[in-house]
């Protein structure tokens, strides 16, 4: 029984592959169409993943800087220190006196002369606070509260832009899902149509097979294999397109990285994502074939 089942699957796979070989140009064409259609959402997804990795480094431990009004007295500084230490969201704090700030500024390239020419120290005392990795809105609220504290002139939320980027990326993800859904549908339609054409050329075979005792699954199987293989090949094509794109972009980024002295390059899709992509595209191919054959079998069913 088991070997009969295996034999039937071999037979179906063999026929599916034969189908590819008998019409290589048409098969290749639809694989390329599927690949291009799929490379769009996959490409956007890859870009998002890369940007997320970058913004994630910054947003993991967002910083707030609290600047004092000019010349606060000791008790005011101590009061703020107390409040910060007792705050649940604050993980660490560091006092940066205006003298220290000036020193740090003087160490920066090209600014030593400027600092030297200053008659007095224009910088305020400050606390640099690291918060838990909480949502941007919470940190914005925290910032508003701190602004009301005595002797505080200004509170700066350093990671604000990264947080906003993060929120934007979430929106981008939604866009990827919508795009992927739309193009997946297109792919199912492409495969549906390919299989429909194939069925038309195999009408006699299907009819005879049914008459001499073929089950519906026997008739379906070669087409399902064909659809799945086509989907899989489309998925691989999409990945190749993206990999090539990343390669080209990275070559350009090398120049940019050197200019700005930062290491920034695009990473390829993770293995897990790659496998998901292949499984999903194969499944879509299978689905398109399944719907197509089901439609035909229903048509020829004696009423």
């Amino acid at each position: 029984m088991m070997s009969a089942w295996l034999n039937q699957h071999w037979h179906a796979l063999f026929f599916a592959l034969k189908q590819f070989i008998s019409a290589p140009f048409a098969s290749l064409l639809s694989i390329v169409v599927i690949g291009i259609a799929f490379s769009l959402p996959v490409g956007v997804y890859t870009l998002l993943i890369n940007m997320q990795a970058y913004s994630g480094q910054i947003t993991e431990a967002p910083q707030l800087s609290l600047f004092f009004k000019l010349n606060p007295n000791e008790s005011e500084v101590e009061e703020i220190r107390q409040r910060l230490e007792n705050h649940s969201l604050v993980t660490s704090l560091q006092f940066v006196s205006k003298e220290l700030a000036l020193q740090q500024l003087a160490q920066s390239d090209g600014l030593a002369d400027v600092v030297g020419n200053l008659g007095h120290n224009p910088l305020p005392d400050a606390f640099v606070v690291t918060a838990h990795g909480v949502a941007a809105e919470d940190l914005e609220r925290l910032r508003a509260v701190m602004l009301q504290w005595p002797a505080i002139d200004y509170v700066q939320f350093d990671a604000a832009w990264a947080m906003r980027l993060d929120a934007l990326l979430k929106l981008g993800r939604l866009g990827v899902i919508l795009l992927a859904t739309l193009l997946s549908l297109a792919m199912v339609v492409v495969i549906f149509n390919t299989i429909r054409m194939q069925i038309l050329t195999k009408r006699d075979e299907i009819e005879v097979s049914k008459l001499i005792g073929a089950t519906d699954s026997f008739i379906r199987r070669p087409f399902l294999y064909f659809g799945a293989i086509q989907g899989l090949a489309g998925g691989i094509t999409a990945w190749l397109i993206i990999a090539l794109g990343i390669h080209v972009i990275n070559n350009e980024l090398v120049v940019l990285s050197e200019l700005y002295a930062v290491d920034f390059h695009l990473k390829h899709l993770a293995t897990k994502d790659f496998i998901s992509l292949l499984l999903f595209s194969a499944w879509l191919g299978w689905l398109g074939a399944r719907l197509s054959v089901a439609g035909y079998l229903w048509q020829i069913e004696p009423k």
Partner: protein
Amino acid sequence: MISFKNVNKRYPDGFNALKNIVFAIEAGEMVLVTGHSGAGKSTLLRLIAAIERPTYGSVIVNGQDTRQLKKSAIPFLRRNIGLVFQDHKILFDRNVFENVLLPLQIGGFDIKVAARRVRAALDKVGLLKREKAYPITLSGGERQRLCIARAVVHRPSILIADEPTGNLDVDYARDIMDMFKSFHQVGVTVLIATHDATLLEDKQQYRILALAQGELAA
């Protein structure tokens, strides 16, 4: 093995192809179904293979009522039946060997076993030397024999042929009939629909079901 009980078949256009048919065929019988074209011979055969279902009454094949059979069970009923079609239904995109192989592929046979059986069937109908030929190169008689080989390769217990000698000259027709007789001799239940009078020379040997305008003559 096959029994019809008050079988009526009416087509959607209102045509009554079969009216109140009653008969029973035992295992190992050889039966000729005769009558003019349009008498309902083909319909009767199609009802046995569950290609069509009766409007009323019941058709019982191998103990199974075709009207109550689930859709998914029909293929397995058909695997017990060998069908020789009036229009052959040979696949022209594959050679003789591959045509005969099809029922065994459907049954999921191992290719080595299947190849042996295909050659045995081709040998029986005298086409062994032409296994690589494509059907387009075969004569009418050879195509008919190819169709018979495909019908018997999976060793069904029932063999049904619809006008198997239709367009053949007398000698060829006799050859074909002899083939059916030899299957009958090894215990296969054989049903042949024909309007061909030449086959009826030795009709006393077989049971005859004579159809006229959809009714069974007494």
